[in-house]
């Protein structure tokens, strides 16, 4: 009788382990893949072209697609609250940081961020150098960017906000086992229409 009870507990333990592994499988696999992939560091951006004085094309971003990794998501305005040090976030859309320049053909770093969720930027971590990101604006302009580099950084690394130079796009989602890293993907502008 007692042996049966012990066997029951052993089975229960085994079942709990199995259930835990199943529940976290996508996260564990993604973490393992991330850990075993080669990091690609950003190339120096903005050293070649002169910066035009004024933007001729600009607009509020409404949609972003990255065909290489099958991302297609709408964009909401994202706000930073200085008092609480929190950013607005959506579970289903990407956010354009309104404190950064609008997509334009003159200069500055346009920053768009989104949750590491299936509906938003889950697949962003698979994007590769050379992949294109297409941003469409509410006033029907289209900006085509090409990825030039990626890096993982700390949440307190705000250097992207001090960028001055030719127009670039930075996309962000979180990575790491506890989502403790901020993965930044930098794209240069190749076409604005």
């Amino acid at each position, binding site marked *: 009788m007692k042996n049966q009870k012990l066997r029951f*507990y*052993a089975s229960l*333990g085994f079942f709990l382990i199995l259930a835990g592994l199943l529940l*976290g499988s996508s996260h564990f696999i993604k973490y393992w893949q991330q850990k075993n992939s080669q990091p690609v560091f950003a190339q120096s951006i*903005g050293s070649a072209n002169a910066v035009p004085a004024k933007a001729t094309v600009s607009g509020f971003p409404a949609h972003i697609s990255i065909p290489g990794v099958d991302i297609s998501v709408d964009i909401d305005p994202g706000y*930073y609250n200085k008092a609480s*040090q929190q950013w607005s976030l959506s579970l289903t859309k990407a956010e354009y940081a309104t404190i950064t*320049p609008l997509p334009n053909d003159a200069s*500055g770093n346009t920053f768009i961020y989104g949750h590491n969720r299936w509906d938003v930027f889950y697949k962003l971590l698979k994007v590769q150098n050379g992949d294109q990101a297409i941003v469409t604006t509410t006033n029907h302009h289209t900006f085509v960017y090409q990825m030039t580099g990626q890096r993982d950084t700390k949440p307190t690394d705000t250097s992207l906000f001090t960028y001055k130079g030719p127009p670039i796009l930075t996309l*962000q989602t979180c990575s790491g086992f506890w989502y403790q890293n901020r993965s930044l993907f930098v794209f240069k502008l190749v076409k604005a229409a």
Partner: protein
Amino acid sequence: MYGGKGGGAASVATTAAGVAVLPNTGGNHFLLVASIVSIVTGGVVLLSSVARLVAKQAYKA
């Protein structure tokens, strides 16, 4: 990484002084925590029952 040349800022450019952190764009923490709690609990239950079983066998012998 962001070492571009300065100057010539467009009219659309803004500065972002005062930003202390990047957005926390993490995924679903609930699933992760639930799965880890489940694995740890299962491990403890499994190990303790195996230990008790072994101890019982040893006591009998």
